Structure formats: structure tokens, C-alpha cells
């Protein structure tokens, strides 16, 4: 569309006219702004300067109350207690060194504490923010400071709250702990909440405290105060309370956890007990543990070094952080892979001469003399290795690993714990990528009995057992409710495997514990309706087969036991790992029986649940444990009141 020159020019003239008009209006407005600026900054400057200097309104943040943590029955696991501290606003103190010295004399601070406070006061990065100069002071110190306030400009007592873990070491590996915000914590956040900059504010450092930080922290409130020229608070104008953090209820049963932790004393071990119905983690114990209360105000190296140097590694949460070769506990997976694929039937037999030649290498069964002809049930019961070597060669590693994944091995479970390990279910592709080497047949043979590259955490083994026991995709959960609102049960659908096969596996596991020739027969439960089914595992740490007692602790085998009970109506699934404990049947299975009975009976089980020959020993053990169990002591005082 072509326009005439005249039309174009006419419209351009009109445009220019209006542009000039609008531009003029804009300039006029800017003139208005300039006049306003002059009015505020020049005419009224003195008045505003006065306001700024003499009577300024200040907003101080009120730290939110951190959510508390409870066990499934409402037992408190983490709480807040009031603590008093003395703070100083350096800019308001004038000669802050002199004031600091006066405070130190008044409330008897050690030279060390004084030096540390001065160091913090000299840091310029946060002007006008109160600096804590003495922490956890007594009420007497608070009143002394208040009485002497005129001589101590800028100094004031404050009441805060600090975290306490009444259950001490029992829950270090579940609840975790809080600590002061470190510069590293701040850097990790893109847009840190202002409350994190409050001196000595505490945030979750590990486990539930850290993973559920957003829920637990809450939001800060603020108080608006009028301050005078020296910065002293004249009056509080308004106070807006923040939102406290949410209270969390865990799925853990504190009483059971306490028993398990006591039962594991002296070992480097881990126990996970799952509720089969919802996947609730009712106990998650890693021994030895440590007292998280030591860490809250900053741990002293006197306390820290022994924890760090302990060869039993108390700082590591072995239930989810530790990945171990699952040993014979893995045999159910190899068997399931084979019978689900229809490669063998449960009643087909394999001859075990005590070893199998594969690719020119001889793979031994743990029993050198061999088991003879074995079917699925006998092989599991007596833990024959050759049977599984044979299955694995027929099925192949890919199917075995895929089956293990469906049972929750090699998968990182979403739990509110720190450093959850995903374990490892190796595949050909994995080995090529990670190790740069081709998969060899010997790797399959090793993997079939849970050795070689295969790795699993006790948590994963417990999940596997719960899935075997129920045929459902039991998924572990640790948070039961948030502020009283029940959290959803995660994935609990059917596994979609043939029922007959699952039943066969359960029956075989039953035989492991209850058949006279089963490897865990000595750890059976004889109470009706409480029968346990399980599988022992002994995973090698070194390659040569040597008697465990003749080698140092670090080289002994790991002892494992997975189990579920009651056999006909599974309620709990359990995995026990004893690091370098020797054999699964001797070191792990007895622990599993004790903790399982404790879970089934909801407390100390009657002696007649144990086979007769064991009762004397168990009675003595129960008596000994009652003494070291804080729960038992608390029970005497509190529950009766």
C-alpha cells in the first residue's frame, strides 16, 4: 500500500507535534520530581536528619521456633529448651573493648571466652547486628547484666532456644543434629533466608534435621522497636510472631530403636526393621553411635577426635550409607530371576560336587565336600553356592540385576537421611563404563551369591525382604506425619510376580530357619504364630578362605541376616549386618531373632518364644540389657506416674 508523500508528511508532522507535547509533559513531570527531591533533601533535610539520628525505627528478626520431632508413639526425640545469652551491638557500645571487659568481670567469663567474643566483635561484616558475647549463661548472669545496664551500653541479655536430643545416641543416625550456620551452608543456598544470618542460628546438619530443614525451620517473625541515639531499645512498637516450624512424627518406634541400639552394643553393626504393611521404618540402628548433643554448640576436638578415629566408625550411618556385598542373602534374587524367567522349575535339581569349573577357573562351594543333588529349597536352606552358580550361568547377569532392582536393590530409596547410598547391581554396560573392562563369566558367578561387584545397604536388604514377604512393592518411609497430617504411603502396589514363585521363596526361607538342617536353625522362634523365615549371609572381605578367628578384625567376613515374621502373616521385615562379625548364622541371626521378637511383642518377649536350650542364656542377656537400656530405667519412673 503506497501512500502519498503529502499524507506521510502530514502524519509525521502530527506525530512530531504530539511527540513534542508528550515529551514536554515528561520533562514537566521530571521537573516535579526534582522539586520534590529538593523539598525532601534540602528544605526538610534537617528534620529528616534528626529523625534518622535520634529516633529511628528498627526491625529485629525473631527467630522461629524449630519444629520438634517425635517417634511413632509421640515420644519426644528432639526438643527446644530456653537458653540465655548476652549480646552486644558493637556500634552502640562506644569503646566496645572496655565494655566487653566490664561484662567479662561481671559474669566471670574466662579469658578464652572473652578473646573469642572480641574476635567476633571485631568482624565488620554485619554492622548494627547484635553479636553474641556469652552463651548458655545462668539466670544470675542475666540479672547481673540487667542491673548494670547503664554501665554497659549496647549490651543486653536475650533469651533464645537451643536444641536438645533427650534420647542421646539412640537417634543420632535417624534424627541427626543441628549446628550453627556455617559460611559454607550460606554459600550453598541461592537466596538464604534472612534468619540464617542471625548469629548462632541453628540449622539441621545431617539426617532428618537437615533433610527436612524447610519443614522444621519455620519463618521468622519480627519486632519493630524504637531506638534512641545510642541504639538502646526505647520501646517495642509491634511484634509479629513468625511461623513455628512443623512438628514431625517419625515412623520409628523409640522403644524398639532403644532396644536395638542396646542389643548392638560392642559391635560395629546395623539393623533395619520395616513394617511390612506401610513400609514404615520402625527401627534404623547403626552401632556404635554418638551423642548428637555434643555437636550442638560446636564440638570440642577432645570429643571429636575419638569419634573420628574409632575403627568402628560411629559417625557413619551404616544402614543407608554403608554398602556391603550381600553375600548369600542375595541368593533369593538369583533364584527369583531364574524361576520367574521359567529357566528352571523350583523342583529341578543341580548336582553340587563342592565346586564348579567355569572358564577354566574353579569356583568353590563353601562346603568343600559338596551338597550332592539339591533343589531350590535345599540349596537355600543349606546355602549351597554351586546351585546358584549354575542358575546364574543359565540366566545371565542382566536378568539377575533387573530382578534385584525390582526388589529395591541398586536403587536409591528416598529417605530423609543423609548420604543415602544406592548400592550396586552391576551390569555389563556398567562394568564397561566404570571399569573400562568387559564383563567376564566369573563376574556373573560371583554376583550370583552376592559377592564381587554386588553391593547393598542394610536398608535395601530389609526392603528386599519385605517385598519377598508381601509380594508388594513395599517402599520405606521415615516421616509418618507433619504437624499431625499423616504422610502418604509411597508405592505399595503389587510386584506382579507369580504368586507360586513368591510362596516357594518364602517356604524356602522358612526352611532356612526352621528346618533342622537350615543354616539359621539355632536362631528359630518357637512361639506359635510368630515363626520367623530368613536367610543368612556371610560376605567375604578378602579372597582367601581362612578361619575368621585367626585373622585381625578388619579382615573377617561380614555377617548378614535378613528375615521376616510371622511367616504366615508377615508384619516385620528385618536386616541385620555385623561388620566383620564372622558367619551370618552365628553373628547376625541371633540378633535378628532378638530384635524381631522385641518388635513382634512390642517389648520384652516371653522366654518361651525361644527354644528351650537357649532360655537360660537369653534370660541373662535380657537382664543385662535392661541395665544398659535407658528406656527400661525411664519406664520405672515415668510410666507409673
Amino acid at each position, binding site marked *: *500500500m503506497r501512500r502519498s508523500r503529502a499524507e506521510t508528511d502530514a502524519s509525521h508532522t502530527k506525530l512530531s507535534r504530539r511527540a513534542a507535547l508528550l515529551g514536554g509533559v515528561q520533562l514537566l513531570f521530571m521537573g516535579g*520530581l526534582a522539586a*520534590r527531591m529538593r523539598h525532601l533533601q534540602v528544605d526538610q533535610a534537617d528534620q*529528616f*536528619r534528626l529523625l534518622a539520628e535520634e529516633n529511628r*525505627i528498627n526491625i529485629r528478626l525473631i527467630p522461629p521456633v524449630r519444629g520438634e520431632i517425635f517417634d511413632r508413639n509421640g515420644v519426644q526425640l528432639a526438643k527446644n529448651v530456653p537458653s540465655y545469652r548476652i549480646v552486644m551491638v558493637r556500634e552502640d557500645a562506644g569503646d566496645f573493648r572496655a565494655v566487653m571487659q566490664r561484662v567479662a568481670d561481671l559474669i566471670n567469663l574466662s579469658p578464652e571466652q572473652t578473646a573469642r567474643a572480641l574476635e567476633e566483635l571485631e568482624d565488620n561484616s554485619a554492622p*548494627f547486628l547484635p553479636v553474641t558475647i556469652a552463651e548458655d549463661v545462668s539466670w544470675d548472669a542475666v540479672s547481673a547484666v540487667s542491673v548494670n545496664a547503664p554501665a554497659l551500653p549496647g549490651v543486653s541479655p536475650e533469651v533464645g532456644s537451643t536444641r536438645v536430643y533427650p534420647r542421646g545416641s539412640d537417634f543420632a543416625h535417624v534424627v541427626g543434629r543441628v549446628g550453627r550456620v556455617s559460611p559454607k551452608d550460606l554459600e550453598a543456598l541461592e537466596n538464604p533466608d534472612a534468619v540464617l544470618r542471625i548469629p548462632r542460628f541453628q540449622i539441621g546438619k545431617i539426617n532428618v534435621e537437615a533433610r527436612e530443614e524447610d519443614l522444621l525451620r519455620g519463618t521468622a517473625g519480627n519486632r519493630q522497636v524504637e531506638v534512641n541515639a545510642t541504639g538502646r531499645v526505647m520501646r517495642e512498637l509491634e511484634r509479629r510472631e513468625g511461623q513455628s516450624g512443623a512438628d514431625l512424627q517419625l515412623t520409628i518406634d523409640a522403644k524398639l530403636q532403644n532396644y536395638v541400639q542396646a542389643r548392638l552394643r560392642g559391635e560395629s553393626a546395623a539393623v533395619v526393621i520395616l513394617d511390612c504393611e506401610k513400609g514404615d521404618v520402625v527401627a534404623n540402628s547403626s552401632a556404635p553411635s554418638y551423642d548428637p548433643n555434643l555437636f550442638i554448640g560446636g564440638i570440642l576436638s577432645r570429643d571429636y577426635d575419638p569419634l573420628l578415629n574409632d575403627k568402628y566408625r560411629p559417625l557413619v550411618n551404616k544402614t543407608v550409607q554403608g554398602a556391603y556385598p550381600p553375600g548369600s542373602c542375595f541368593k533369593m534374587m538369583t533364584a527369583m530371576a531364574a524361576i520367574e524367567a521359567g529357566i528352571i522349575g523350583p523342583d529341578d535339581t543341580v548336582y553340587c560336587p563342592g565346586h564348579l569349573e567355569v572358564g577354566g577357573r574353579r569356583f568353590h562351594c563353601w562346603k568343600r565336600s559338596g551338597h550332592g543333588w539339591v533343589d531350590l529349597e535345599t540349596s537355600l536352606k543349606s546355602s549351597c553356592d554351586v546351585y546358584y552358580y549354575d542358575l546364574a550361568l543359565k540366566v545371565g547377569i542382566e536378568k539377575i540385576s533387573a530382578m534385584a532392582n525390582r526388589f529395591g536393590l541398586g536403587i536409591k530409596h528416598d529417605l530423609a537421611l543423609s548420604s543415602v547410598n544406592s548400592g550396586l547391581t552391576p551390569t555389563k554396560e556398567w562394568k564397561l563404563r566404570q571399569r573400562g573392562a568387559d564383563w567376564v563369566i566369573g563376574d556373573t558367578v560371583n554376583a550370583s551369591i552376592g559377592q564381587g561387584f554386588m553391593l547393598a545397604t542394610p536398608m535395601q536388604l530389609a526392603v528386599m525382604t519385605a517385598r519377598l514377604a508381601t509380594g508388594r512393592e513395599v517402599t520405606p518411609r521415615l516421616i509418618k506425619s507433619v504437624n499431625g497430617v499423616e504422610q502418604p504411603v509411597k508405592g505399595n502396589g503389587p510386584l506382579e510376580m507369580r504368586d507360586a514363585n513368591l510362596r516357594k521363596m518364602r517356604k524356602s526361607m522358612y526352611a532356612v530357619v526352621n528346618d533342622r538342617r537350615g543354616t539359621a536353625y539355632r536362631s528359630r522362634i518357637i512361639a506359635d504364630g510368630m515363626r520367623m523365615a530368613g536367610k543368612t549371609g556371610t560376605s567375604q572381605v578378602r579372597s582367601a578362605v581362612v578361619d575368621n578367628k585367626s585373622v585381625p578384625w578388619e579382615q573377617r567376613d561380614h555377617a548378614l541376616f535378613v528375615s521376616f515374621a510371622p511367616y504366615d502373616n508377615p508384619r516385620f521385615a528385618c536386616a541385620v549386618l555385623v561388620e566383620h562379625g564372622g558367619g551370618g548364622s552365628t553373628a547376625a541371626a541371633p540378633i535378628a531373632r532378638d530384635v524381631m521378637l522385641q518388635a513382634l511383642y512390642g517389648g520384652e518377649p516371653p522366654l518361651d518364644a525361644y527354644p528351650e536350650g537357649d532360655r537360660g542364656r537369653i534370660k541373662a542377656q535380657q537382664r543385662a540389657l535392661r541395665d544398659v537400656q535407658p528406656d527400661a530405667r525411664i519406664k520405672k519412673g515415668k510410666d507409673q506416674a
Partner: protein
Amino acid sequence: MSYLEHSVKSVPTGLRKVLFLNWPLVLLLTAVAGAGFLMLYSVAGGNYAPWAAPQMKRFALGLCLMISVGMVPIWIWRNLAGLAYGISVMLLIGVELFGSVGMGAQRWIEIGSFRLQPSEMTKITLVMFLAAYYDWLPAKKISRPMWVLLPVLIIIIPTVLVLKQPDLGTAILLLAAGGGLMFLAGVHWAYFATVVAAGVGLVAAVFQSRGTDWQMIKDYQFRRIDTFLDPASDPLNTGYHIAQSKIALGSGGWTGRGYMQGTQSRLNFLPEKHTDFIFTTLAEEFGFVGGMSLLVLYALIVVFCVASAVMNKDRFASLLTLGIALNFFLFFAVNMSMVMGLAPVVGVPLPLVSYGGSAMLVLLLAFGLVQSAHVHRPR
């Protein structure tokens, strides 16, 4: 099309275009951004992190973007105007449906790691589309009701979407910029009188709706307006911002307290001291002289744009340039009025000075269009 009526031959081509950029404008923009870096460095307590350094990087990026946009012929931008407007509206609807909520409002949309604020973009695409519309519309039709209704719809659609986010500040800017463009294009006076009347009616309706279940704006927005109308009524909540802002500004005096010496902006915990209220810090630390200098820089930017537009015989180009200049003016005028207590607190940043990547990039992109109009003007 009007472009073709003029001689194309003398328009520079290739890399030579760089020489024909509106360099004074580039310098002015850089100067304003420089003032921004200074202030961001200061409010962070003398640190490049967390604001000054990223802001510098974004400005450098934005400058490159501006020059690149400026090298592309203006008629290409005109042909893209409808598409750009369409995309903006779609994105605004996208925010409504999938956007993430930040500070009580739904404004962001995330594409990968990139966060986009479509309402920012819309300020420019709306102007572009209206300029293209009036470039296409024959002069005699401009004031006919049908042809007035159409641009009104073009303005209203994004405005309503932005208002729903809710982002009152941007909605007002869109309305004002759109209306301004219609005025520049030559729409008859009478329409504006009508709009003003309708606007008064709408304001009345909004206030009538308060407390009923068809309440049209959020409670906090009402409170801000109340506070503005009567700051003394509520000196500690929303009035607090204005009161503190005025104290900080006023205490600056003639020459200010000196760089990094402002106590108020540091003390008063204004939540947005690095974005919407950054002018208070500047005015406190550099006083009336500093504040006026920035205002003069802004005024010069507007003047250079208007001059470039008036010299430009291409209708789309001059309308676009004027529209962008108007947008820019509205930005800083609203922000400054707000911090000086002349307007209610609406979330409008100080252009090129406040911290914020999206706003800065979009603004420099817009000035890229101004450059393109300038470089490719008919000679």
C-alpha cells in the same frame, strides 16, 4: 511500507552500521548502569557479591544484545511485531497456568535453567505491535471507533493477564504506555477524555469491591493505596517503607553522607533495598546532587530518543522509539515517585539501576530496537 517511499541507498550496510549507532545514547545508558553498579556495591556493604558482579555481567551481555538488535533492519522488526506480541500473550497465559509463585505473585516461567518474566517482555512487544498497527493503518481511519477499539483490545488483553498475576505496577505501566502510543499516533482527543472518565469509574469500582467477594485486587494492594493516601494511618506496616524511604532520602541533604556511609539504607531492613528502593540509597549517600545527576541522565536518554524519533521519517520507527522512551520514562518516574512518597508502593524497579536480570536485558533489547530505528532511518 512507508519506508520504501524513501531512498534506501544511503542507509549504511554491513559492519559499517556500527558507526551509525546512536552512540551518545549508548554512553548515557552505560553511565546510568554504572551508577547502578556503584549502588549495588554499596548496599552489599562494599562487596561485588551478591549483586554488583552479576549485574555487570548482565549489562555487558545486554549491551552486546542491544548492538546486535540494532544491526538488524527495522523493517524486519516491524514484520515480527505481531508474532512477538502473540508470543508474549501466550507466555502470559503460560505463566497463569504453569508459572511459579514468587513473593506472593505468579510472575516467572522457567525454561530449563532460564527464568523468564513475560510481563517484562510484554512492555516492549505491546509497543512494537501498536507501532506496527499504526504504521499500517491509513491516517484517515485512525480516529474511527472500530479502529480505536482494536488497539484498546490489544492493550487490555495483556494488562488483564498481568493484573491477574497480580502485578499492579506492570499493569499500570502497560496501560499508560499503550495509551501514550495511541495518543502519539494521533487518536482524537475525545477518546482520551472518555478513557480518563472510565478510569475514574474503574477506580471507584475497585474501591467499591473492597471487602465483598468479588474483590478485584488483593488486600495488600488496598493497604498500599490506603497508606499512600494517608501515610500516618499505618506508619509501621506498609507505611513503614515510605516513611523509611523518605527519612533515608531526606537525611542525604545537599551532598549526601558520602559513598558507603549511608546508615539508613543499611539499618532499616528495607526488604528490597537492592531493587525497588535503591534510589533511596543513592540519594542518601550522594544527596540532592547525586539524585539530580541521575535524573538528568534519565532526562537526556528520553530527550535523545525523542529527538531521534522526530528526525526519523519512518512512521513505525518513530512510533516505536517514542513508545520505548515513554516506557522508560514511566519506569523511572513511577519508581522515583514511589520512593519520594508521591505514588503508592507498586513493584516497579529503577531502570538499569535496580538489581534484576530480566528487566535489564529487556530494557537493553528495547534500546536495541531504538538503535535499529536510528541506524536504518530513511535518509
